[in-house]
């Protein structure tokens, strides 16, 4: 498993770990049942905080990509396409929420916003 942490990136470190592990699970580089390094070992090997690493694992577990067996460790969960879709949907929702907040700040009405979206989709 490869994890490259960039200190220059704007993305928080836990998110970098989360995304890279997620990517490797989706792509099949990490397969179902594979044991992941312990939170502490990974943190120490990446020379980052234990809390940061724990957060990445927590997020991965919350989204169903990995599971924890008490006393044994963390493992890659069964790949669930439904889950991947759900994850992407959640990301979409989050992006829309940010778009909405921006729109509110610019005093853009709902219909104007919808129009913008239509225009954008038309371009594509």
């Amino acid at each position, binding site marked *: 498993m490869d994890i490259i942490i960039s200190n220059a990136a704007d993305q*928080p470190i836990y998110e970098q770990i989360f995304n890279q592990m997620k990517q490797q699970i989706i792509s099949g580089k990490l397969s179902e049942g594979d044991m992941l390094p312990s939170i*502490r070992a990974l943190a120490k090997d990446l*020379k980052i*905080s234990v*809390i940061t690493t724990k*957060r990445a694992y927590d997020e991965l577990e919350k989204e169903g990509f990995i599971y924890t067996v008490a006393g044994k460790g963390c493992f890659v969960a069964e790949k669930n396409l439904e889950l991947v879709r759900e994850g992407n949907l959640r990301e979409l929702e989050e992006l829309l929420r940010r778009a909405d*907040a921006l729109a509110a*700040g610019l005093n853009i009405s709902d219909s104007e916003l919808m129009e913008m979206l239509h225009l954008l989709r038309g371009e594509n």
Partner: protein
Amino acid sequence: MSETNANAIKVGHLTKSYGNFTLRDVNLCLPTGSIMGLVGENGAGKTTLFKLIMNVLERDEGKICVLGHDNLSPEFGDLRNDIGVVLSGAGLPEYLSPRQVNGILRQTFRGWNEAYFRQLMADFKLPENKTIKEFSTGMKMKLAIAAALAHNPRLLLLDEPTSGLDPMTREDILAVFNDFTRNPANSILISSHIVSDLEKICDYIAFLHEGRLLFCEEKDRLLEDYALIKMPAADFAVVPPGAVVSLRREAYGVEALVKKHDINPSFVTEHTTLEDIILFWSKGGGAQ
């Protein structure tokens, strides 16, 4: 008072004043298994805090628990066998050689591991028979660290262990501390004014400024909660004052450290480093 305590260090309402310096009402917790970085300029009270934690300095008020025991209790004397200390200004007498240090500390610490000490000497490339007087600053620090590690402590107290060292040596030393906490029972309190060193290895950051603890936070949370904002002075009025930690008025605009969640997400913010946060906090005098 169990052996497996949740906190390696717990300091409550600690106050100490002498001369015209006061360490005022310090509260902090170092959870077992983690590394806490203590940041602060010279004279902020870092060394004083270390001395109070080891109970070599009389406090005015407050309570300190170390490895689950009150450090005023009689058990604390024996508990020193489980603590490793490195002090930047004070150390082993220079007429000793590492071999002699081994001979002395073997008689001092209950859990002294001679094989481990010699292993560390080899790892650090320290000649066992030369006197400390002949060592470079980096070598002296490495010896001090080895001496603090070789009795297998559960807690390391490190006062400025990287100051005055070249980047390569600092890297070596930080790697040792990083490895020490592979064991979840081991914890570190480390002070430094080189913030980037702390940013690398710490789980928690505590910031002492003029005798006060301005914050003690998870490092990640700090980096996430704060952001830098840069804008023309005229536009700055729209930023809610409550969100601003401190600001710097420059010739061509304003630069401010803000709480990310208290401002409208439409503001363009920049990612902060720990160094930015510390600098702005110390200049802003902690204006909430």
